[in-house]
């Protein structure tokens, strides 16, 4: 095992360097709450691609796809993860352009939900998106803390506090701008480190022919693209990723950060192209772990690290530590700022014409609160998989009616709310993870159908979509999409009636 002092020292050096980059990038440039939570029209296609890749690809890419490959159906499960991660990015090309067109001075998805649908749908979207983002954050802190505990026996709280604390420093100071700049540099380190690391690991395992022969002799279904259980997993994880990412405020912030529609299209397109091979390679480590007989003791969730330990000398483990720390930092800063921005943008509306100081305190105070919560949870070593799946399910039921509001004026707030809640009811009825809770409702237990993740996720999405179509057809012209652009304005913009600047 690598020395914990060496791993902690390396982790500290990594977070210090990137904290310095974040502080330097934001120095003297954050002059209002608007620039703290929005980096409007500032990112070209390369920067946008880099920040989207870094934001979405957390340390989970070293854990979940490998676990899918090892325990949930081999190659088709991994392919589902990979393709399912790319689809939302491709969808954000037209949807992002529409968001910018309908609400050009907007900041957050909840701002849109309130302006378009009213308070009912706003509360549902707020609950679902903040819950998802906080679980994402907590899972990242838990993942890195568990990984460093595995490779070097580092106490959970030390990892969580060190990484969370330093990310908090530059995110609190530099907001979204610091996040985007550090993301860009981090992506330019992460991509070659991943490619060279995976290539080296494969060669250490004897090359692709040897790897293939080992896996096929252990279990040929691992590399069978048509293996049923793997296909089922791949399909439901694609539904889960779609809903969750469409309600990810971090991506919405980057839609606004794009320097025009061309940058949005190229940036999202490049990110979509690269996440597929990244997750495929990571997933192959899980398949390798199973093929090598390393996951027999129920350790599929750390399959990636098991193979690294098997195939690589200790110094390479340190490179993996740097990679994992960068992956966590780049996602954590995004989530810190994303959660804070949702609430800050809402504060501007909820408080009666607040001044800049109040919004500053709100934005930075919330960043600190979110970070402390995530650091605390990361230090506990909880299993967050069930919470993650629950958050994904909630998003699957809500995102279709929510996004439909961008395109039709006929969908009313109550129509969207009922569509979303109906989708959630179907999802919960079939959701295996909450079976006990749902069955405890009097009179429901005996009537529940057989649980299925696929039916839960697909059902939540498709039922909410069908009801959205019905509500749109039945609804009258209730909304005025043209007025949204006038209602939602920049936080440092003078009010339209000539009132004081806030």
């Amino acid at each position, binding site marked *: 095992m690598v020395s914990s002092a060496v791993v902690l020292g390396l982790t500290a050096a990594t977070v210090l360097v990137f904290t310095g980059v974040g502080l330097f990038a934001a120095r003297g440039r954050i002059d209002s709450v608007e620039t703290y939570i929005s980096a409007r029209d500032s990112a070209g296609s390369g*920067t946008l691609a880099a920040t989207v890749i870094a934001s979405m690809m957390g340390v989970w890419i070293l854990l979940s796809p490998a676990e899918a490959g090892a325990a949930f159906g081999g190659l088709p499960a991994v392919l589902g993860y990979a393709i399912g991660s790319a689809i939302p990015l491709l969808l954000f090309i037209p949807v992002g352009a529409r968001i910018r067109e309908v609400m050009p001075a907007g900041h957050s998805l909840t701002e849109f939900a309130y302006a378009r649908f009213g308070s009912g749908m706003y509360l549902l979207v707020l609950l679902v998106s903040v819950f998802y983002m906080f679980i994402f954050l907590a899972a990242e802190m838990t993942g890195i803390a568990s990984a460093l505990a595995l490779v070097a026996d580092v106490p959970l709280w030390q990892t969580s506090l060190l990484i969370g604390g330093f990310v908090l420093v530059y995110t609190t100071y530099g907001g979204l701008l610091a996040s985007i700049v550090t993301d860009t540099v981090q992506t330019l380190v992460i991509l070659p480190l991943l490619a060279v690391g995976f290539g080296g690991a494969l060669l250490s395992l004897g090359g692709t022919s040897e790897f293939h022969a080992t896996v096929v002799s252990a279990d040929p279904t691992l590399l069978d693209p048509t293996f049923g259980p793997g296909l089922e997993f791949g399909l439901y994880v694609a539904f889960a990723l779609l809903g969750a990412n469409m309600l990810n405020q971090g991506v919405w912030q980057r839609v606004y950060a794009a320097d025009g529609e061309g940058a949005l299209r190229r940036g999202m397109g490049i990110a979509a192209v690269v996440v597929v*091979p990244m997750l495929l390679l990571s997933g192959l480590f899980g398949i390798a772990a199973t093929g090598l007989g390393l996951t027999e003791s129920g350790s599929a969730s750390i399959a990636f690290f098991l193979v690294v330990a098997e195939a690589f000398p200790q110094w390479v483990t340190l490179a993996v530590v740097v990679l994992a720390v960068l992956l966590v930092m780049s996602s954590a800063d995004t989530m810190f700022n994303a959660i804070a921005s949702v609430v800050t943008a809402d504060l501007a509306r909820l408080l009666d014409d607040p001044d800049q100081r109040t919004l500053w305190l709100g934005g930075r105070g919330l960043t600190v609160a979110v970070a402390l919560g995530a650091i605390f949870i990361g230090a506990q070593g909880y299993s967050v998989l069930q919470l993650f799946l629950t958050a994904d399910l909630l998003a699957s039921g809500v995102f279709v009616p929510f996004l439909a509001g961008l395109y039709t004026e006929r969908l009313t707030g109550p129509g969207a709310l009922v569509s979303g809640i109906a989708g959630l009811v179907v999802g919960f009825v079939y959701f295996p993870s909450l079976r006990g809770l749902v069955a405890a409702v009097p009179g429901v237990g005996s009537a529940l159908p057989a649980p299925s993740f696929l039916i839960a996720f697909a059902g939540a999405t498709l039922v909410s979509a069908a009801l959205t179509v019905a509500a749109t057809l039945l609804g009258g012209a209730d909304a005025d999409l043209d007025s949204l652009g006038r209602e939602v304005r920049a936080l440092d913009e003078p009010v339209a009636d000539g009132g004081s600047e806030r």
Partner: protein
Amino acid sequence: MTPPAVITLAALGSTAFGAVVWGSILLVLTVFLAVCWLVLTE
């Protein structure tokens, strides 16, 4: 044809597997170079 035979036939062949793996690594490196170029020329 027995089920195991079907499974074996459906499994990805060694050459195709190698192409997928090395192709993925090359694609990641290509995107890295593309992003570098785009960022530097912004």
